[in-house]
């Protein structure tokens, strides 16, 4: 098990390293475009050459990558040309805001999706299953930007009970969190619920569950004691694999509601060609993704003894 974990950790480091290399190569391999992005399109050839020379861009690409990487590891994430501040100064605040959004969303999505999935997978093709499955399909079909519009229309314009922006200008406000979280929950829960349902259906068809039912055990007990534990392995993986999905989803919601999180930074960085900011956002996003995958692996190991003892 230790061997498995250290192997996974090694692969994880390799992935982060390789992705950081790709991002760096895409953004900084061609030094002329870097100069244009930093100095603007109206700079002269001379100014660009001077700037490149001054900032060490005329060195070998691989040397520059090594320097960037060592700076990055030591906590120097470069200078944001958009915000005119070092990236490290403001990035963590934004990341924290996104963590709050994603955390609350997951805290609602997971119990909701599991309940939906278990209830509908428990009795396949029953009326309850049909209705719940249909709700889940609708949830996965409505794009976030559409639910942003629909929910704003209902709660902000028609009922007027929620604020239409979540910029939190006057300090942190729970009320401003409701709409972004609602949109993300609707966007996310259908998929997990469907995986839970599929897994539950499969477990309900196994012979040990049938035996339990046939020997006259109450149905509730069959589900909660016998079926549930095995049915949860697939959804647990799915829940953790949802994080990259959630991170993508967060971008749209943050833009739509002017929420100050990393999705906001990422789009801002992309639109204004802010190289250091894009690099930071991408590397952090990749680290979040691979870490959640590692956690998923570890949890699966505990749920499934066949993996634990092999």
């Amino acid at each position, binding site marked *: 098990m230790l061997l498995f974990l250290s192997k996974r950790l090694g692969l994880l480091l390799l992935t982060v390293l390789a992705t950081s290399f790709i991002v760096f190569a895409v953004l900084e391999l061609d030094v002329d475009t870097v100069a244009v992005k930093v100095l603007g399109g109206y700079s002269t050839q001379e100014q660009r050459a001077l700037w490149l020379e001054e900032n060490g861009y005329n060195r070998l690409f691989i040397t520059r990558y090594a320097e960037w990487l060592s700076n990055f590891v030591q906590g120097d994430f470069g200078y944001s040309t958009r915000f005119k501040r070092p990236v490290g100064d403001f990035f963590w605040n934004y990341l924290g805001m996104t963590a709050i959004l994603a955390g609350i969303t997951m805290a609602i999505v997971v119990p909701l999706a599991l309940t939906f999935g278990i209830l509908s997978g428990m009795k396949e093709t029953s009326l309850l299953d*049909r209705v719940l499955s249909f709700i889940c*399909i609708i949830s996965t079909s409505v794009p976030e930007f*559409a639910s942003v519009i629909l929910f704003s229309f209902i709660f902000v314009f028609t009922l007027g009970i929620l604020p239409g922006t979540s910029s939190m200008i006057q300090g942190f406000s729970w009320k401003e969190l409701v709409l972004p979280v609602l949109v993300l929950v609707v966007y996310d829960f259908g998929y997990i619920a469907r995986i839970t349902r599929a897994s539950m259906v499969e477990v309900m068809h196994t012979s040990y569950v049938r035996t339990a039912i046939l020997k006259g055990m109450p149905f509730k007990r069959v589900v909660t004691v016998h079926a549930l534990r095995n049915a949860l392995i697939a959804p647990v993986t799915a829940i953790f694999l949802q994080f*990259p999905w959630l991170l*993508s989803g967060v971008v749209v919601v943050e833009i739509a509601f002017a929420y100050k999180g990393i999705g906001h930074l990422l789009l801002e960085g*992309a639109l204004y060609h802010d190289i250091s900011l894009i690099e930071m956002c991408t590397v952090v996003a990749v680290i979040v993704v691979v870490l959640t995958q590692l956690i998923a692996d570890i949890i699966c190991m505990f749920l499934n003894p066949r993996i634990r003892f092999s």
Partner: protein
Amino acid sequence: MSAPTSSLTKLFRILKDIASSPFGFLGLFLTLFWIFVAIFAPLLAPFSPTELIQPLVKPLSYTKNGQLLILGSDHIGRDVLSRIIHGTRPVLFWSIFATFPAYFIGSSLGLAAGYYKKSTDTILSFIANLILSFPVLVLYLIIIVYLGPSGSNIVVAITFASSPAIFRIVRALTLDIAGRDFINAAQIRGESSLYILFIEILPNAKGPLIVDFCLRVGYTAITIGVLGFLGLGLPPPSPDWGSMINSGRPFALFMPHMVIFPCIAISSFVLGLNLLADEINHINSRI
């Protein structure tokens, strides 16, 4: 019976199978409806999508010239219904067209990795996992910002971001199929690897792939919508749904029809594809 007729009757039987369940019927209906609208867009739309009629007309009301605008008009006076109808073309075209190269690359490499195994598999899987560890939207943003927003660049971005997922599915299916007896028989017969990959293995993997294709076209439509919503979609004159929502958003407070109808359009299209995929999946698992 000749081959084309038998495949046609087969198709009809499958369609009948799908339509026999209410959700499958709804899925088939919505999908075919939008395909129909896309094909006959110029005949169905009452106005040109770029014609300036009269700004900010509410749905179901008349312009000064007495023209009925069923879904109203937008902030510069274009008919919303005509724009939605014409918008089916770029949305459907690019979402289907962008899914194909992703399938071509993803399934070729998936077949290779699953069939040859060993170092081919290790290297290809590592690359696929590498790409998959980027959140997709981050990938799209970097590619689109780097290459600039246009239809063909959306195809590049989607190919790049979706082929690893397709690769994984095809690889897993190939690993399963490659161990069966008929593949062994083909190898002993001395068939070439290409023949085995594309004639023996791929057709046997088509069930799950068709389901995934339907889902993926839907997600691609959403992606194009998201890019349009973020202002990175197809260039302005083209009336794609995401860009319509993006440009109508500032007016959503007092003119909600400008954004609500495109939202309903894209949701119903994706819903149709999802229901269809679900039903095909049911039928596959019954066989």
